[in-house]
């Protein structure tokens, strides 16, 4: 396997990990918002 091929695989892996981390942050933010919405609706 050439060095070039290895670099391409690593770039793909890093891009995917960055995407997963970004989504995870977004999900936890949305979970907090959803919890706030549920609390508000149960208070009403």
């Amino acid at each position: 396997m050439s060095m070039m091929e290895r670099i391409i695989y690593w770039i793909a892996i890093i891009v995917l990990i960055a995407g997963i981390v970004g989504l995870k942050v977004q999900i936890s933010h949305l979970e907090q918002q959803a919890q706030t919405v549920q609390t508000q609706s149960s208070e009403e």
Partner: protein
Amino acid sequence: MNPKVERIIYLGIIGVLAILLVSFGKKEVELQKEIPITVDQLYAKLQNPSVKVGKNFQIIDVREYESEDEDDEIGGYVDQHIPGAIPLPDCDESKAPPEAVEHINPYLPTVIVSRDGNPEIFKKCAKKFTLVQNLKGGMEAWLEEHDEIVEEDEYEPPKAGGGGGCL
């Protein structure tokens, strides 16, 4: 290491990461459905020049098309609606004007506008769209905050090349 084995290992890692990414993406979409969009958020969205109602975003109005009660301040779609909104009364295609049904795209990011933001109507409607949010407070809340930004006529399909109901 054998190049073939190395390649399989890399592809395996990429495959697992891709599956994780897709499942997180699905979870995000599901969570977004639970969080209603506020009137101010929708207003800001409509003011954004990159958001084109009918092209990359749609507003679905699930109130009745024509209100029978003349004293009703909120009324139906024809009485007043958010610019660019598509009528789909009770989320039932048979109650909507045929030209409106043609312009509904289930894959576009969608905001559902009901009379008062009723979550039950939203749940019924949300099944039909991929990316969907409920307008918190519905048309009542919109009229409280932005009663100057409404259209008062029958549904008119967007003209070809037009951007829909951009403010």
